């Protein structure tokens, strides 16, 4: 058995994953080989300023919003005591299970002019009543903030809790008020975690297509689709996607700088809350947390239930069992595969922290930053190329059927998920691995346990919690994933997201409530798992 430290093992493995991700990125870059100047001229004249403006406004708005919401909620639930804190603490993570496009169509359906809220108000106050439109910049930002704040909340909460009591007590003893202690001690120390959450939220925002198109808000992603579907120019669409990639790289570099400077603290745990709130303050805290929870979770669930009762229940048939089992099995297998691969990368990075290795690993994580649809097409092209130039000639030469094997196979779909969600799994695993001190495996080796046994008996048990949260995150993301699933699913492998797509593309929002509700419920299981795990920390 080869030694675990062999560079002949880790480099080829890391190189393999990087090559996998390089495949679709290469396809994207190759699109620059032909440039349709008339389309670019048109985009430049009429669209680009609006697109860039809208995209920046959206990113800034969502960024500020998720930080305000995520940090304030995390601070309150992790360091203060107020009525309802115990359940709000975990309840505030539940919106993780709601896909952005679902919250978007719930909000527009509920709050638009023809929706129940405004209709009722008009009944009360007369038909001349006009409220600010929900399909506006403010509306789309609000929805995305409510969907993506859990990233910041989850990570900031972890950071605040890890700071322990000693630090804040020291700050207080040195004469800082709770507020100033927050600004001068807790917040700066939590910045790396907040930054990581913010980066994830921003990447999701930049890649979002579903929610912005419900709001008719024009961004880079909607322009990408328009160029592809409308002008029939896939190459111009991919070129636009490359520009979007530049935005994403800026976000990633900023995050890296932020994270690079500080190390998160890990102290002894607190037993009791630091700031027991009383009176008005306590109720204000409850109201704030409760409001966010109601808007981001209770309201959409109630609306989905109402729609389900109105229309969706007539669609409920045995096919839903298939949809749910397809969705669950694809999600589970993809999660397993992605976590295993991310684990390999994390080990490679740990064993050989060379510059090349770091770049390989960073590169392998790029898939998450690309808009899902474009990545899906790029992967489809890559597989199709392999089919046509490798699989078919090979199989013909060996006397096989000479038919494409990759595209349309379950394996190809799983690899697409792997490429897309590697970063989601890698983050938690890298963190978990970093907490295992080198002295532990060293001690183990000196006691004669090395190689594979070392992995099974030392690493895996220690890494299990990290693996679990990585797997849960990937699982939820795969459930929600739409473009790659649509394009590459094998015949008969429809999932809940596919069903939502079919109904919403026909404007049948209320019928889409059934698959949406099912998806949320299925997605809730792992989120609850995640919560239970983080509660033990």
């Amino acid at each position: 058995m080869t030694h675990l430290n062999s560079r002949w093992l880790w480099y080829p493995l890391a190189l393999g994953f990087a090559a996998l991700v390089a495949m679709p990125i290469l396809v994207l870059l190759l699109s620059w080989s032909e440039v349709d100047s008339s389309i670019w001229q048109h985009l430049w004249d009429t669209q680009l300023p609006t697109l860039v403006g809208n995209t920046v406004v959206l990113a800034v708005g969502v960024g500020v919003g998720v930080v305000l919401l995520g940090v304030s909620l995390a601070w309150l639930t992790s360091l203060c005591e107020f009525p309802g804190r115990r359940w709000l603490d975990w309840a505030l993570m539940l919106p993780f299970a709601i896909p952005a496009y679902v919250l978007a169509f719930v909000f527009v359906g509920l709050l638009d002019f023809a929706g129940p809220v405004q209709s009722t108000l008009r009944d009360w106050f007369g038909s001349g009543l006009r409220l600010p439109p929900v399909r506006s910049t403010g509306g789309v930002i609000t929805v995305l903030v409510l969907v993506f704040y859990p990233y910041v909340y989850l990570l900031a909460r972890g950071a605040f809790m890890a700071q322990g009591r000693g630090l804040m007590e020291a700050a207080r003893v040195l004469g800082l008020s709770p507020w100033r202690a927050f600004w001068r001690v807790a917040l700066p120390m939590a910045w790396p975690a907040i930054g990581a959450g913010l980066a994830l939220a921003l990447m999701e925002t930049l890649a979002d297509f579903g929610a912005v198109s419900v709001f008719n808000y024009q961004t880079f992603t909607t322009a990408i689709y328009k160029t592809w579907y409308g002008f029939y120019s896939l190459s111009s669409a991919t070129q636009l996607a490359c520009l979007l990639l530049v935005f994403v790289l800026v976000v990633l570099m900023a995050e890296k700088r932020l994270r690079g400077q500080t190390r998160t603290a890990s102290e002894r745990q607190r037993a009791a809350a630091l700031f027991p709130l009383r009176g008005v303050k306590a109720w204000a805290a409850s109201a704030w947390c409760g409001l966010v929870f109601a808007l981001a979770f209770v309201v959409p669930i109630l609306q989905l239930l109402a729609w389900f009762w109105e229309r969706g229940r007539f669609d409920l048939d045995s096919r839903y069992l298939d949809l749910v089992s397809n969705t669950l099995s694809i999600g589970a297998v993809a999660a397993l595969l992605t976590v295993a691969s991310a684990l390999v990368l994390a080990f490679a990075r740990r064993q050989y922290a060379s510059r090349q290795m770091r770049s390989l690993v960073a590169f392998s994580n790029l898939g998450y930053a690309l808009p899902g649809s474009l990545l899906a097409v790029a992967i489809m092209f890559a597989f199709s190329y392999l089919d046509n130039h490798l699989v078919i000639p090979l199989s013909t030469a060996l006397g096989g059927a000479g038919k494409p094997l990759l595209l349309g196979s379950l394996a190809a779909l799983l690899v697409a998920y792997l490429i897309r969600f590697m970063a989601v799994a890698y983050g938690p695993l890298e963190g978990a691995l970093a907490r295992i001190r080198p002295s532990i495996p060293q001690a183990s080796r000196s006691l004669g346990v090395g190689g594979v046994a070392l992995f099974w008996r030392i690493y895996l048990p220690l890494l299990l919690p990290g693996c679990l949260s990585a797997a849960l995150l990937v699982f939820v993301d795969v459930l929600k994933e739409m473009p790659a699933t649509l394009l590459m699913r094998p015949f008969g492998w429809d999932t809940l997201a596919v069903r939502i797509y079919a109904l919403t593309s026909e404007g049948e929002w209320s019928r889409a409530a059934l698959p949406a509700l099912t998806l949320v419920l299925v997605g809730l299981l792992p989120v609850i798992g995640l919560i239970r795990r983080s509660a033990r920390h």
Partner: protein
Amino acid sequence: MQMRPLFAAVVLAATTFTANAAEELVVYSARIDDLIKPVFDAYTAKTGVKVSFITDKEAPLLARLKAEGANTPADMLITVDAGNLWQASQEDVLEPVTSKVIEANIPAQYRATNNTWTGLSLRARTLAYSTERVKDGELSTYEALGDANMEGRLCLRTSQKVYNQSLTAAMLKTWGEEKTEAVVKSWVNNLATDVFSDDTALLKAIDAGQCDVGIVNSYYYGRLLASQPDLKVKLFWPNQADRGVHVNLSGAGVTKHAPHKAEAIKLLEWMTGPEAQSIFAKLNMEFPANPSVEPAPEVKSWGEFKADTINVEFAGKLQPEAIKLMDRAGWK
């Protein structure tokens, strides 16, 4: 030398996975599951030929067809508008099919001039108006929606939707660029609110009083009326004195590299015949492309109308021009 068994496994998989019986057709469909599966089910029940399919939007399906090239498993492509069929034909992924059956069943204006595809069901993109706030004689043509009496009363769907792109392309073909751009600009000026992302939302807005008139596909109206019989909205057939109502279609073509070409042609022919056409008519409140088949009773109750006879291929040919025009006119 561990590679041999791997190769053997690949070959084995290749032969087992793809050893499709000829009695199975593969379709790439932009019509969603609900709106196509009943047609295939009826065909399977009748002939025993199985039809498996995947659904997605046209552009990804077309990209996949192109990428797969000669090795595609797909026998047929189905889209929900003529522009995309024209584009598929341009990209050379469809096979010309000369069939007496199809020619007899479907009028020439709903088929490709090069025989690469045929329409299967038609949808009118027409005016919907509030029965409470629009007076008799206020509506006449698409173009008149830009008149001063419609200021602040018009609702439109987003220009991102191919149906509006085809509508504009048809105007471009009829009126030329200058007049079309003026019309589209006058529409945008008359908007009561931001454009909607779907026709159903637009119809509900008319019902709720946010605006008085809009342009929608006929079947969205039919569907909404079925679930809300008290809808205070009706359809109006515009341009009856000149070019007629803009009609688009959902159609299909046999792929160039179809593994089962003969079988696929048989399916396509059957889909234009009375049996399949009446399924299409019932499924989605569309008009059958075969004129000998009656539309559904609800659809009939909307009344007869004169349809624009322009060949729908222009929708595809002029689509990029139409989009640029709509962008210039500020139609979001």
